[in-house]
C-alpha cells in the first residue's frame, strides 16, 4: 500500500482561472489503475461533502480515447504506449508526489478541472476525413480490389489513432500533425481513398490551421507519447500528399 501527495489542477469552468490543489491519499494499492486511484480520491471528497475532481474517462481499456491526463509532465503518465486508464499504480512509489493536469493547448480549452474540449479534432475530420460513398448495398464486392497486405497493414496502423490528443498535449507547438497525418495516411494507402485525395488533405490541413494548432518542427515528441504508437512516417506521408495536392490545385 502507498501514500501519495496529489497536486491536481482545479478549474470550475472555462472562464475560471484555475489553480493547483494538494490532496493527500493513503492506502493506494499498486494493482489499482490510475483512474481507480482518482475514483478513491473522489469518493473521499464526496464523503467530506466536497466536489470531486472532474476528469474524462469512459471505456477504461485504452481504446475510446476519452481519458486525457497530463501526469508528472507527460501525456498519459510515465509509461509508453498506454493511455491513463491503462496506467497502474505499480508505476509509482510510496511517498511520491504526483502532478495531474489537463491537456494544455489553445485549441483544447478547459471545460472543468481536468476535462478539455477536443471538438476541434471532430471538425478536422468533418472537413475531409472520409470517403464519399453512400450506403446502398450496391457497392462492389469487398474482394473486388485486392490490396497489398503491406499497404493494408500500414493503413490499419494509421487508423488505430484513438483521437485522445496526447500528440497535441506533448508538442511544444501544440501541433496536430500526427493526428491529421494518421487519417490522411490511412486513406492515402488505400485504393478507395485515391479519388478524393487532393481535396481531403487540403481541406483537413486548412481546418487544422483554423483551429489554432501550431506548426510541426519535427521534434517527434508526439510519436513518443502516442498511446497507439502512430509513427512519424504518417506526417511525412501527409506532407507528401499536401505537396502533391498543392501542385495539382
Amino acid at each position, binding site marked *: 500500500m502507498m501514500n501519495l501527495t496529489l497536486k491536481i489542477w482545479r478549474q*470550475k*469552468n472555462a472562464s475560471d482561472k484555475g489553480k493547483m490543489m494538494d490532496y493527500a491519499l493513503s492506502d493506494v*494499492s499498486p*494493482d*489499482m*489503475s490510475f483512474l*481507480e486511484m482518482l*475514483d478513491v480520491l473522489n*469518493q473521499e*471528497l*464526496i*464523503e467530506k461533502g466536497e*466536489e*470531486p475532481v472532474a476528469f474524462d*474517462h*469512459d*471505456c*477504461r*481499456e*485504452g*481504446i*475510446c*480515447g476519452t481519458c486525457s491526463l497530463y501526469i508528472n509532465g507527460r501525456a498519459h503518465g510515465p509509461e509508453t504506449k*498506454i493511455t491513463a486508464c*491503462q496506467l*497502474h499504480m505499480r508505476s509509482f512509489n510510496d511517498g511520491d508526489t504526483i502532478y495531474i493536469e489537463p491537456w494544455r493547448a489553445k485549441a483544447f480549452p478547459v*471545460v*472543468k478541472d481536468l476535462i478539455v474540449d*477536443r*471538438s476541434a*479534432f*471532430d471538425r478536422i*475530420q*468533418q472537413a475531409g*476525413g*472520409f*470517403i*464519399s*460513398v*453512400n*450506403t446502398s*448495398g450496391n*457497392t*462492389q464486392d*469487398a*474482394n473486388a480490389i*485486392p*490490396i*497489398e*497486405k503491406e499497404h*493494408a*497493414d500500414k*493503413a*490499419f496502423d494509421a*487508423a*488505430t489513432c*484513438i*483521437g485522445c490528443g496526447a500528440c497535441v498535449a506533448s508538442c511544444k507547438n501544440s501541433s496536430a500533425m500526427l493526428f491529421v497525418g494518421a487519417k490522411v495516411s490511412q486513406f492515402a494507402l*488505400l485504393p*478507395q481513398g485515391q479519388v478524393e485525395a487532393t481535396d481531403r488533405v487540403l481541406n483537413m490541413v486548412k481546418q487544422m490551421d483554423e483551429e489554432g494548432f501550431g506548426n510541426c518542427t519535427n521534434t517527434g515528441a508526439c510519436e513518443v507519447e502516442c498511446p497507439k504508437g502512430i509513427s512519424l512516417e504518417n506526417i511525412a506521408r501527409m506532407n507528401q500528399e499536401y505537396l502533391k495536392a498543392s501542385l495539382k490545385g
Partner: protein
Amino acid sequence: MALDSKIPKGPLAEKWTNYKNEINLVNPANKRLIDVIIVGTGLAGGSAAATLAELGYNVKAFCFQDSPRRAHSIAAQGGINAAKNYQGDGDSTYRLFYDTVKGGDYRSREANVYRLAEVSTNIIDQCVAQGVPFAREYGGLLDNRSFGGVLVSRTFYAKGQTGQQLLLGAYSAMNRQIGRGKIKMYTRHEMLDVVIVDGKARGIIARNLVTGEIERHSAHAVVLGTGGYGNAFYLSTYAMGSNVTAAWKAHKRGAFFANPCYTQIHPTCIPVSGDHQSKLTLMSESLRNDGRIWVPKHIKDVEAIRNGTLKPTQLSEEDRDYYLERRYPAFGNLVPRDVASRAAKERCDAGYGVNKTGEAVYLDFSAAIERYGKEQAHVKGLDEDDSALVQKLGKEVIANKYGNLFQMYEKIVDQNPYETPMMIYPAVHYTMGGLWVDYNLMTTVPGLYAIGEANFSDHGANRLGASALMQGLADGYFVLPYTIGDYLAHDIRTGTIPTDSKEFDEAEKNVRNNIAKLINNKGTKSVDYFHKRLGKIMWNKCGMARNAKDLKSAITEIAQLREEFYKDVFVPGEENEYNEELAKAGRVADFLELGELFAKDALEREESAGGHFRDEYQTETGEALRRPEYQYVSAWEYKGQPSEAVHHKEALDYENIEVKERSYK
C-alpha cells in the same frame, strides 16, 4: 394490447425483398421536410444517422460522450460475421441464420435473423468501400477467422480492434454528413425523456452535460441506439458511462421491455483483483481460436499454484483438465459463450479456480506457439527441432494475431502471457434483452425505434461472437433506413413539430423534478455506494446461475435498496454545471428499477435458455434445459413500479428450422 411483430408473409428467403418492394417511400424533396432524432452514436446509431442523412432526412444525433467516435462499440475486439463464404467452407445465408438461431437457444425471431444474415454481406462491402482496413492475406484478399458456436470461418476482423475500425468507418460517414449540414451533432448531451404527442414519439428532452441546460428537441421520429444495460451489474466490460436511461425512459413512456433477464456473461475476461475495481476487461473470444482453456486435474496442484509453490507451466499435460475439450469434443474451446462461461463457473465452484479468489481458469497459448513456430520453421526451411527458434517464430505469429490483446493483459495483470498462461473468468458483457421491437424495429410506441443492442430482436437468449457488430450495422445501414421510411411517408405534410406544446412542458417538468430530487436530497452516501450494492445483488442472485429463492430475495433487496437510495443518496455540486455525479445518479436510479424487472423476468422464465440458466432446469449432464411452454418473448409493460409491470407474450414460431436440443458435443 396484443403484440404484433408485423412479420411479412411469404417464404423466409423472400420476406425482406418483398417487404422492400411493397413499402411506402418518401420522395427526395419530401425527405427534406422530415426530422429524425437519433440517440447514441455507436455502430447502430452512427450508421443510422449517416444513412438517413445521406437519404436526405434532417438528422439530429445525440451522444453523452465528447465525440461520437467514443461510443463503446469502439471497444469491440474480435470481429464481424458475414456469410460471404470467401473461404469456400460451406457458409451461406441459411447457415449464418441457422447458427444464430441455434446459438440464441431458439429464442429469437426467425424472420429478423434471416434478414440479418441476408444483409451481412452488404456490410462488409460497404465498410471496405469506406476505407475500413480489415485484415488481409498476402494475396491482398480479406482474411477470416472462426468464432464460437460455428463450424466455418466467417469472421472479418482488424486485429483485436474490429469495433474501433468499424465505428471509425461509421463516424467518418457521419462526419461527411455533419460537414454537409445534414446531421446536427449534439455531443455531451444526455437524453432524459421521450416526448409523446398524440400517441407518437415526437421528440426528446436532453440535458447539456457541460452547462446543465435542459433542452427540448422535436422530430417526426425518435431512434434509440443507446446500447445495453449490463452496467446494472456495476462490474462489467461496458464503458463507465454505458447506461439504460434512454431505454428506460422510453419504457416508462410505453415501450415494452423484452427479455431483460437475457444477459451475456462472457467467458474470457480478466478476473477481479480487488474492491477498488471499476470495470472488467475483456480478452477477445478470438483468442479461443488458439488458446486452450484448462484447470489442474488435482486439487493439490490447485493449492500449490495458489500458494505460489507451483507454476502453471510446470504442470504436465496429463495433470491438466482441458475441460471444454473434454466435455464438448466437436466444438472444443470454441463452444458458445454461455456454455464456456458456465463450464468455467462449474470448475471454479468445484474448487479448481487457479487464483487467490478461486475465480479464474487458464487460457494457454503454449501449444499454439509451438504449432505456429514449427509451421514457420518449415515454411522458411529452418530447423524445426530448434526449440528456441520455434518459440521465437511461434510468438511472432501470435503477436501478429493478438498483439494488442496480449499487451493489454500484461498492462493490467503484470504477467507476460507469452510465457505463462492468461488467467480469465466470466464477466457481464452484453445484454440480449432490450426494448421490444417489431420487424420494422419500431417499439410499442409509434415512431419510436430501437436499434442495435438497445433492442431485443436478433440474438435470442445468447449472442454468438462477432454478431453484435453485424447487428448494429445491419440495423443502422440496411434495415432502419427502409423501415422508417414506410412510417415517415405519412408525415410529409405534418411540418415541423413545435416544442411549445403541453406534452413538451410536461416532459421537461418531469425531468427537472427528477434532477431537483437528486440534487436536493443531501443524503450521506455516494452514488457509487448504491451502484456497487446493486451490482453485488445482481451478480450473486441474477448472474450465471439463478434460482427461484435467490431471485425472489433479489426482487425484495433491490426494491429496498431503491428506497434507501432516494432517502440517503448525496449528489454534490449544482444542476447548472458540469456534474458527473448528477449524471451518474440519474443512471443508477434507472438501473435500480431495471434491476428489479430483470429479476422478475428471470423468475417468470421457468426454464434455462442461453444466458439465462436456472438451477432448477438443467439436464443430467448440467446443460441448459429449455421448456417448450416457454417458447415466447416476454415483453413487460410499465405500470408504475417494476413489481406492477404487466407481462405480455409474443409466441415464437419456427417454420424453417427444427427446434432441438442445442448440442455442441
